[in-house]
């Protein structure tokens, strides 16, 4: 290994809870985590090698084998497939001379599949050494490989820049914001510093009361009342408290946090500072998914700007004893880390396995201290609530869902992108808004959400009906819904943390049963079995992943049964899972016998 491990370890003070950062630095420098690094880390951190490896092997972007000097991570999620990923992948393979999941013999180019990278409105997209390339075509893939062969710097291969802050000096990315509709809360006017000014005039309890009375519910998808979470955390006995911003948006089809953090990070940072004040927390963490590493320099500059204005750090805004600072913690490719207790485990340098609850993070969270984890958009909303008031916020949306929601809309529509709408919009109104026609189905809330067909297009996007963390994917009549379902099933098989039996094994059973149906070997009984499995997984799994991962299958069986019916066999006492004749064909040929079945 060429990297000076001691230097990296010193940077994080040899702290084992910063293992994610240590591994990220090694992976970035070396293109892998070599075995001598594992041995040295084991030595220096006082843990066994298998303990170092258990963290490494959990995360998609850590690898013990070299990933290539140029490591191409091409999104393989459903919408990427819909937008022509297959041709792009073929071009990469042909030009590079290796297949996905491998590295060229000379070690120069590595091709890797990766789950949704938060670019669904500009797919196919790939990340190469941290740099994002969007709207890829076969030709662009060829150009990229040629550039790699010529030894170009990856950033040099970015030929056009995206809109807004994406083109700024600190970002220099071709990613587009695609803000199609600005609403009253997130993408509206905000004066930097105004929320902090307002909060320090109030008592911390009054800040929590204001958030509570605004009826703001968590924007990550679960919808827990933000003010209530803050109140629980503020009442915890321990005084050392933490505040975490969940910027791990991994739900396939979601990209609104990326846009919020690009265009209006001040709202988020200020919401966190307000939260720090309200909870009496001294330290905040922005847990940012590794896919958004390209925003690192820019976001750090935003934090520096706040520090320079004395709005972050000690005695914030001149308020004696109001001390709060923030750091960015990167993930490394694990969907389950969007679950708050898994996120905390990950931020502590461990495998992102959801914790047993209770105790809840508000009692025992980061480093076992009271911790509130809130979504990017929730923090952004808090800033506006402080300035404009809870009553103003409650006036937007409907009874159960106050305020606006930023939706990430992609798939078969004319105008994919980000839309900030008041809660309560019907699916049909949403389709009209994005220019979707001839629609067969809509997936609201990502794979862990609900597939709805035309008969349900009058349903409303809000809590109590179709709740969503922001992901909305549109499918037109030409789409085979089971292809998409199949893609999501693979996703959950891989992204399960592997702890709970009904999740680890259950998703595999969904996989094999769905294959049986897709291959024309399924019966009605298989669909009933899948639906029953869903109820078992919902009751018996620990976290939101295992309690919803059957949704792509179960909600399509319920809402789009016609997608299955044509593939089913007539009911009979025995339908083999596999093609018996094909299975014995090789051996029959070998012994010179005709299959006699």
């Amino acid at each position, binding site marked *: 290994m060429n990297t000076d491990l001691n230097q990296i370890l010193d940077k994080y003070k040899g702290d084992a809870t910063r293992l994610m950062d240590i591994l990220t630095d090694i992976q970035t420098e070396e293109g892998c985590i070599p075995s001598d690094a594992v041995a040295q880390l*084991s030595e220096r951190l*006082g*843990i*066994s*090698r*298998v*303990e170092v*490896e*258990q963290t490494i*092997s*959990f995360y998609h972007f850590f690898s013990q084998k070299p990933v290539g000097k140029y490591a191409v991570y091409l999104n393989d999620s459903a919408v990427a497939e819909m937008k022509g990923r297959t041709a792009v992948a073929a071009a990469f393979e042909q030009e590079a001379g290796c297949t996905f999941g491998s590295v060229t013999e000379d070690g120069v180019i590595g091709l890797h599949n990766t789950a949704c990278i938060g670019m669904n409105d500009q797919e196919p997209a790939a990340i190469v050494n941290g740099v994002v390339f969007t709207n890829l075509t076969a030709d662009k893939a060829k150009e990229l490989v040629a550039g790699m062969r010529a030894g170009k710097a990856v950033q040099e291969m970015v030929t056009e820049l995206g809109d807004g802050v994406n083109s700024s000096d600190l970002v220099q990315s071709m990613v587009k914001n695609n803000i199609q509709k600005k609403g009253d809360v997130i993408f509206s006017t905000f004066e930097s510093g105004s929320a902090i000014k307002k909060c320090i005039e109030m008592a911390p309890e009054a800040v929590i009361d204001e958030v509570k009375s605004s009826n703001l519910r968590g924007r990550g998808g679960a919808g827990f009342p933000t003010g209530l979470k803050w109140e629980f955390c503020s009442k915890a006995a321990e005084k050392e408290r933490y505040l975490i911003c969940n910027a791990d948006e991994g739900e396939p089809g979601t990209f609104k946090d990326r846009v919020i953090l690009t265009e209006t990070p001040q709202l988020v940072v200020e919401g966190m500072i307000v939260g720090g004040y309200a909870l009496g927390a001294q330290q905040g963490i922005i847990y940012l998914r590794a896919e958004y590493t390209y925003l690192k320099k820019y976001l750090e500059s935003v934090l520096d700007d706040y520090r320079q204005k004395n709005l972050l750090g000690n005695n914030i805004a001149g308020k004696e004893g109001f001390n709060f600072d923030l750091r960015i913690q990167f993930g490394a490719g*694990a969907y389950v880390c969007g679950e708050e207790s898994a996120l905390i485990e990950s931020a502590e340098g461990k*495998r992102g396995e959801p914790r*047993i609850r*209770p105790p809840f993070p508000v009692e025992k969270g980061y480093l076992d201290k009271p911790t509130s984890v809130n979504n990017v958009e929730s923090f952004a909303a808090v800033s506006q609530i402080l300035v404009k008031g809870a009553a103003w916020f409650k006036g937007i949306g409907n009874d159960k869902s106050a305020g606006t929601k930023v939706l990430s809309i992609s798939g078969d529509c004319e105008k994919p992108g980000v839309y900030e709408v008041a809660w309560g919009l019907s699916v049909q109104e949403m389709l009209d808004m994005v220019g979707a026609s001839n629609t067969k189905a809509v997936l609201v809330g990502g794979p862990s959400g609900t597939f709805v067909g035309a008969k349900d297009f009058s349903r409303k996007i809000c809590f109590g009906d179709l709740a969503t963390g922001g992901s909305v994917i549109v499918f037109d009549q030409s789409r085979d819904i089971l292809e998409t379902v199949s893609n999501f099933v693979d996703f959950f*098989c*891989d*992204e*399960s*943390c*592997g*702890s*709970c*039996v*009904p999740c*680890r*094994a*259950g*998703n*595999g*059973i969904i996989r*094999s*049963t769905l294959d049986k149906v897709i291959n024309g070997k399924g019966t009605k009984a298989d669909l009933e*079995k899948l639906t029953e*499995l869903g109820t*078992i997984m919902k*009751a*018996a*799994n*620990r976290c939101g992943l295992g309690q919803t991962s059957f949704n792509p299958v179960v909600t399509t069986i319920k809402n789009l049964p016609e997608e299955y019916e044509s593939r089913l066999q007539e009911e009979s006492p025995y339908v083999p*899972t596999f093609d018996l004749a094909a299975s014995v064909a090789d051996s029959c040929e070998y012994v010179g016998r005709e299959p006699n079945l």
Partner: protein
Amino acid sequence: MSEQITFTIDGKQCTAEKGDTIVAAAKKNGVYIPTLCDFEGLKPAATCRVCTVKVNGAPTTACSATVSQGVEIESNTEEITNIRKAVVEMMFVEGNHFCPACEKSGSCDLQALCYKYQMMVPRYDFTFPRKELDATSPKLLIEKNRCILCKRCVRSSITTNGKSLFAVAKRGNKTVIQMDKTLAADLSEEQAKEAMELCPVGAILKKETGFVTPIGQRKYDAAPIGSDIESNA
């Protein structure tokens, strides 16, 4: 004396100490709740999920959740029994369990639960995955075909210089238990024995001795799993 609380399990009036886990509280009242990953003295992991119960209607794991005053617990209902049986079946199909050839047969908790729930053929298709057999340690054999990833070994105090011998690797359906090869070389006889005894199935086996306990004298040969607890009812 700690605070006594009352609650019900399937309608039966029960008494326990505040802070008891539901599994422990049930045991005191002669009610058996099946467990696999749970092991006395180890922090609950709640990974196997066979102890799933409903507390006031909400599902939770009885090995990790504690009882509270007045709660109504559902355990041996048709719904919960079906869930437990399904979970046992899932463990069976996600691994390669061939009881007749296994040294732990008769002393295996998973096998005992299969009998308890009268599993004939699992409702799910077998997956016959390819799994590794790790025989690198001079003292232990790790038979991953049988491992149910309960993490008892990972949570145990089997360490050398404070470093854990076992850890989990990978994720999803590729998750496996790994034994640290450098540490395994220095394992003591007692540690090897402890590791084997911790394992609820036949995944961790001590080398050099085998099939010591004859059929007829194994853990569940005389009476089914949980019957010792139920006989105290």
